[in-house]
């Protein structure tokens, strides 16, 4: 408890001791940020500077810019940066501020409450045509025989020049211009058995500069075996169809016949098992027997009368 109190008062005395350092002629000032520089890669520009350190305090920074137009015609006009007025970190993405291919002056100052530092200006104005252009990333895929490329999305300022060729002596190099990255693009239909190679570079119209070409990548599609396998499968399939179609037609015919004209089965008692001639000769004998039986009853009747 006592130790904590001593610690707090030490911190307070230390902070108060710093105040004379920040005072010049009785007026409190903040040191200006130093070592301003711009790093620019693929049209993304970042301004960085050495941070101003005041222990226990959070320093804010303001960034302002001035294009060549302002520096020539209205030098008193400085425009606050879109994203960094104010900002905390000792860096600022000024891509949205640098919108023309002319030299831009940049300046930064630190603020702490009501205290502000002097402006610190970039030593040499920055022109975006000095950006470092790197070879773009690319993804080559085969979609059957189709050669498809997908390029890195570097934003609307970038166009891509894709060079592709068949890897054989005397082959002609083709060039295709792709306006946007991030979307698969069909390059050509490949011939089986031959390798096809691709390389790409970017072009930025705003600064009239190309990047270097990317590493060449080559792909190959399978040659003889694929058509053979296809032929085999096709033959087997054809034979199956040749057998299956008549079979199914016959089956369908039978089904239709049974559904339209069904065959009714006789019960066993009505089934005639003997031959027709025998049946007729049997019947004749029965009739004679019946007739004989009929006469004897008539004679009987006369005898009574």
């Amino acid at each position: 408890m006592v130790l904590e109190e001593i610690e707090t008062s030490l911190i307070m005395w230390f902070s108060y001791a710093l105040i004379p350092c920040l005072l010049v002629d009785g007026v409190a000032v903040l040191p200006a940020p130093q070592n301003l520089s711009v790093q620019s890669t693929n049209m993304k520009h970042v301004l960085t500077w050495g941070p101003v350190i005041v222990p226990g305090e959070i320093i804010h920074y303001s960034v302002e810019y001035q294009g060549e137009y302002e520096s020539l015609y209205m030098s008193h006009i400085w425009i606050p940066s879109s994203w960094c007025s104010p900002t905390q970190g000792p860096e600022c993405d000024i891509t949205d501020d640098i919108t023309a291919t002319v030299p831009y002056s940049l300046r930064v100052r630190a603020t702490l409450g009501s205290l502000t530092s002097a402006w610190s200006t970039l030593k040499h104005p920055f022109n975006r045509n000095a950006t470092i252009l790197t070879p773009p990333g690319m993804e080559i895929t085969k979609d059957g025989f189709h050669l498809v490329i997908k390029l890195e999305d570097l934003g609307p300022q970038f166009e891509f020049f894709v060079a592709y060729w068949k890897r054989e002596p005397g082959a002609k190099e083709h060039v295709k211009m792709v306006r946007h990255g991030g979307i698969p693009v069909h390059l050509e239909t490949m011939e089986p058995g031959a390798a096809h190679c691709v390389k790409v570079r970017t072009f930025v119209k705003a600064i009239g500069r190309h990047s270097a070409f990317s590493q060449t990548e080559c792909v190959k599609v399978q040659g003889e075996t694929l058509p053979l396998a296809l032929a085999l499968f096709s033959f087997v399939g054809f034979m199956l169809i040749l057998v299956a179609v008549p079979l199914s037609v016959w089956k369908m015919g039978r089904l239709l016949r049974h559904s339209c004209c069904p065959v009714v089965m006789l019960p066993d008692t009505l089934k005639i098992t003997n031959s027709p001639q025998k049946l007729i000769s049997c019947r004749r004998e029965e009739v004679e027997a019946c007739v004989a039986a009929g006469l004897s009853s008539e004679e009987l009747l006369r005898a009574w009368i």
Partner: protein
Amino acid sequence: MQAQCVSLCLLGAMVFLCSAHARGLRRCVISMDMRRIEESFRGIKNAIQAKDTFQNVTILSTSETLHSIKPLDVCCVTKNLLAFYVDRVFKDHQELSPQILRKISSIANSFLYMQKTLQQCQEQRLCHCSQEATNATRIIHDNYDQLEVRSAAIKSLGELDVFLAWIDKNHQGTSAASRQET
């Protein structure tokens, strides 16, 4: 002897005409993406045009000036109108809103870059100014001078879309082809 002289003169005249025609074909084209500048202007167009109090007057006078410009005069008129905006309009306009100031700065600096590009054409003598081109520029300056400075500046800013569309239409073409060859 006389016949030889005449034929030599005729040949010389033909060569001269052909070279003049070829020079006209080698047009001075600004190779830049106008869409970015048009986008910047679209963001502030309504705010700028709302401040224009003289709706019945036009400074660019497109029917008298821009629509009647021949292909050979495009470079000269573009150069003159860029100078008109850079030297007069942007300077005469006082903008307080930081958002609008950013867009106007973007357009002004882009115009400065376009002037530098055309400067190269001038050095190659591809940017000759005919009487028609000079007259068209004079009409625009006269229109601007007839209004009070602030009103004239705001009106000219409001007509930027007309100028940008005219540049886009007249400066298309050879840039992509020449890039592929390199």
